[in-house]
């Protein structure tokens, strides 16, 4: 699923650039996100998403795949896993900055998001809407934080992370807001303990490792924005996979019987 957002902040390009390439400034802009570790261009963290009866905690990691200062373009990839094992989210977010005529900065945020697992079952098309709203909030927070402190210290993170777990794909472009941070998927292990508070039992779960789609993920934090989106595809594949597994088992049994 591809989402596009844009923002304009009255801060100089250089300042915004510095903010965008700093996970510690970007992450707080994502609703529900918290960083647990930052190492160079990689980060790990969690994103908590609440929507009505649904409450998901994604843990994962992300990294800056590209920081092209000349082009003022940053590409962030993040992937995360629902701490209770319900699914994964991944996003790749590309932020491109440019100066505006009045000395401000314009940012284009393009996000590619893939979500798998049960959240999709609940979705009925809501996932993209919810993801879009999260991105809207992220872009708004980012712009706000840049506005507030225009110095380098601001919290803006423009980079959205993207997560790409690669799982399923996506959906048609929805329009909504782009800035995404990525959802991360990632290692649950580190954070599972933390989650347990929310979920109770989740802590004891084994850690799952998410497979980043596309790239290597560093250990990063996950920011999940869009947890919900996209899982429907995955869900549809489940019966197919199950059917294939059953066929395989039947085949093996038949073969075993024949040997006798």
């Amino acid at each position, binding site marked *: 699923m591809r989402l596009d957002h844009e923002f304009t902040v009255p801060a100089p390009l250089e300042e915004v650039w510095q903010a965008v390439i700093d996970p510690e400034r970007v992450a707080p802009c994502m609703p529900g996100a918290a960083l647990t570790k930052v190492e160079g261009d990689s980060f790990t963290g969690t994103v908590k998403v609440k*929507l*009505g*009866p*649904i*409450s*998901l905690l994604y843990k994962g990691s992300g990294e800056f795949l590209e920081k092209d200062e000349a082009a003022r373009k940053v590409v962030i990839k993040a992937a995360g896993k629902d701490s*209770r*094992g*319900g699914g994964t989210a991944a996003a790749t977010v590309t932020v491109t900055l440019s100066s505006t005529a009045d000395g401000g900065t314009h940012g284009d945020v393009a996000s590619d998001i893939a979500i798998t697992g*049960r*959240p999709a*079952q*609940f979705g*009925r*098309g*809501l996932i*993209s*809407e*919810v993801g879009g*709203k999260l991105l809207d909030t992220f872009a708004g927070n980012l712009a706000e934080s840049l506005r507030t402190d225009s110095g380098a210290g601001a919290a803006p993170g423009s980079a959205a992370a993207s997560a790409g777990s690669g799982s399923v794909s996506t959906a*048609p472009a*929805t329009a909504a807001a782009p800035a995404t941070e990525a959802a991360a998927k990632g290692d649950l292990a580190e954070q599972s303990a933390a989650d347990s508070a*929310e*979920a*109770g*039992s*989740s802590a004891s779960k084994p850690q799952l490792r998410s497979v980043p789609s596309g790239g290597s993920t560093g250990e990063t934090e996950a920011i999940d924005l869009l947890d919900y989106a996209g899982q*429907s595809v995955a869900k549809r594949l489940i019966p197919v996979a199950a059917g294939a597994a059953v066929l395989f088992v039947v085949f093996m049994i038949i073969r075993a019987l024949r040997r006798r």
Partner: protein
Amino acid sequence: MIPAPFEYVAPSSVDEAVQALAAAGEDAKVLAGGQSLLPVLRMRLAAPTTLVDLRKVAELRGVREDGGDLVIGAMTTHYDVQRDPLVAEHAALLKAATDTVADPQVRHRGTFGGAIAHADPAGDLAAPVLAMDASLVIAGPGGRRTVAAADFFQDFFTTALAPDELLVEVRLPKHTGWRAHYEKFTRVAQAWSMVAVAATVRTEGGVIEEARVALTNMGSTPVRAVAVEQALVGASANADVIRAAAAHAADGTSPAADGNSDVEYRQHLARVLTGRALTAAVGA
């Protein structure tokens, strides 16, 4: 699948329930009929620390009259709403919509207030509540407050209810003698509404005196089809008027697209279904 562990309390009064919610913190959930919450728990899409079960709170059940209002307790089941003579007399639209909710098993367990508080955009009861200008009574640590339906539904699954509040009752102004119809379109039986239209009208001598029309699943919340209502009021109740009014049903709506329907299709459905709903309601 098995839900994550949670604490469980079953208070016997609204006050106790409010206290239990406050004590349990923001990750507590209220359990009404459980027809939406339990599947979510079983899929582990949520893992509340505490469930506050309202099934023992007798004061939350039942339908009564209070002056010009019909008051429906939040824990009244859909089955009871369907069969209540007061609802049939004063809120025909709610009865019509409730008749279409899910299947008999769900209607016996599911509750009116639970469905409203859940605020699924495809849920069938929010549109009638909005159309009839209901007021929702909410209990919380600070006492009770009343919220208009137009302010109650805020977004997907999001209402004016705070985590430490619960819906007590819904007050519907009596629409005595109004005719009503709920027209629902689903891809397969028992599915959630792709689009549905709640319409109720009061006619006198062949003239539409008042009209209320609300749409289900044409946005993140139920929406009033104001343009349709305006086109109907004062006009004579005939097919041409209905057709012209229904053409405005999708005005200003921005429904979400999904695998079954894109925006244009949903807007088309809204117009067609509004025509059908009004035709049935007016009896033209």
